[in-house]
């Protein structure tokens, strides 16, 4: 009876572990194995090729261009998202008339699939009849319609801005979670000491929010770095590969050009990058947990209640 009880928790986690191993674990192994082989267009593994697929990828200029754009894409989207989300969270955390409505509106992009958002924006940015042009012309910002998606730099900029827009709700949510856990008494004490709003932000809010900002950075880097729909739907990496990032390049290699060896090599490289950031995240989460237990149990209870 006792041993049966002890094994119960393991039996309870086993089914979930099984499915995750099957759907997430196995493909990683398969990709690693595939990347070491010559692969036919139809996915048959031929001879063992060692690291040939990797050297092949590293010899490709398009790989470096996509890599460079991936870095720009990730840094710009994550940076822009943080710069907007922190003040938005500070405002939404304060009490004001119509706050719940404001929260609902700010969170809206999260509810919509990235695909749909990108489709709608693709239409909105249409050079001939797009209503962004209509709006800007009504406001006399521009005199002629602009072909937003016809040239790579402009299209890529538009995609980055949309990337920021759809990342704001999630990031704001993390910050709101963080802000709600800040100790109220420090603020009251600082008011007694004559601190201004800016002082409070600089010396209390920002330092205490640091763990949440770090988490927001890491999670956003992971999500943005891997995000295909916006670029795929709006420009498919074009014009002339000018908006290709690693994921779109990978997707084209795998499912358009049938270069499965190279595609699996890139998948593996990306998996490595992802692993580094995930490890970083795991360390942060564990640190946050030890911190909160050191601070005392009552804080956890507060949040849970």
């Amino acid at each position, binding site marked *: 009876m006792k041993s049966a009880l002890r094994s119960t928790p393991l039996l309870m986690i086993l089914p979930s572990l099984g499915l995750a191993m099957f759907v*997430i674990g196995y493909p990683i192994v398969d990709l690693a194995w595939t990347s070491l082989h010559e692969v036919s267009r139809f996915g048959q593994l031929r001879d063992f090729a060692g690291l040939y697929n990797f050297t092949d990828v590293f010899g490709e200029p398009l790989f470096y261009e996509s890599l460079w754009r991936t870095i720009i894409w990730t840094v710009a989207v994550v940076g822009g998202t943080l710069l907007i989300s922190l003040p938005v969270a500070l405002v939404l955390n304060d009490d004001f008339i119509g706050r719940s409505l404001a929260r609902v509106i700010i969170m809206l992009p999260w*509810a919509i699939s990235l695909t749909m958002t990108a489709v709608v*924006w693709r239409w909105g940015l249409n050079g001939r009849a797009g209503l962004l042009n209509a709006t800007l012309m009504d406001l006399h910002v521009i005199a002629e319609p602009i072909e937003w998606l016809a040239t790579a730099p402009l299209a890529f900029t538009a995609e980055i801005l949309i990337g920021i827009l759809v990342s704001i709700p999630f990031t704001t949510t993390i910050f709101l979670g963080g802000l709600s856990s800040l100790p109220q008494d420090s603020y009251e004490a600082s008011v007694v000491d004559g601190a201004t709003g800016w002082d409070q932000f600089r010396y209390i809010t920002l330092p205490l929010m640091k763990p949440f900002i770090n988490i927001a950075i890491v999670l956003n880097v992971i999500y943005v770095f891997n995000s295909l729909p916006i670029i795929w739907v709006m420009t498919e990496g074009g014009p002339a590969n000018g908006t290709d990032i690693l994921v779109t390049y990978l997707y084209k290699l795998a499912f358009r050009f049938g270069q499965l060896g190279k595609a699996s090599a890139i998948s593996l490289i990306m998996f490595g990058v992802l692993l580094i950031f995930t490890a970083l995240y795991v360390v942060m989460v564990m640190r946050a947990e030890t911190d909160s237990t050191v601070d005392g149990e009552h804080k956890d209870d507060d949040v849970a209640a």
Partner: protein
Amino acid sequence: MMMSRLKKSILYWVLLSPLMIVILFPFGLMFVTAVRPRDELFVYPPRWTFSEFHWGNFVDMWGKTNFGGALLNSLYVSVSSTALALVLSIPAAYALSRHRFRGKGSYRNFLLMTQMMSPIVLVLGLFRLMVQFGLVNNLNSLVLTYAAFNMAFTIWMLQSYFNTIPRELEEASWMDGANHFVSLTKIFLPLAVPAMVVTGIFSFINSWNEFVLALTMIRSTENYTLPVQIFAQVAGRYQIEWHHVMAGTVLATVPVAIVFSWLQRYLIRGMALGAVK
């Protein structure tokens, strides 16, 4: 300096308004295009206004595209994958919440890893996996993969809510002679229903919105889910029927957006509790 509540509210709304306009822009765009007469789509100069509301676009779109079929496919995939994810997550979350066991820490880290794994990095491996099992172009390939990718999130959410259900209730029922199974099904699970519903809805929305795997696994029009169906109407086409596309996005997104808006505060709470921390 104390500001009156009214002044502060006005200031905040003014500060938030640029962002809100950009957020609401696509929604406005969707609506005015979905109800616009077809021959007013491409007018020069482009303008927001149009001559009359053309509600017939929706009926038209339903008849001419495979919207109804894609809707059913999306419903099937989202409901089944959510059910599967919940069935597997509930015991796991319960174990994490109530038991200490060897390997708990590693299991939690493993979950974190799977939560961070993005389908796009694995998409080629997943495709090869589904080829082996003959599941390419089969909606069940999506049910399995969505359930697996949603599981980490559902386990976190459920665990954090389970932690708030007092242990004493179950212990009391053991005193009364109930065994663990009875206390679990009669006492614990009924209390956990709201948590399961909320978690299930978020898992449903995730599946409903997923694009990359559906684009890859599903090869024929009649098996398309909604995001792929809408994408197929704009991708690589010379003539895009934008009023149909926008009518489709309105129908596919608005119900989900309403449910999401209604439940988003639970997400904020879940985030604060466990999904992120």
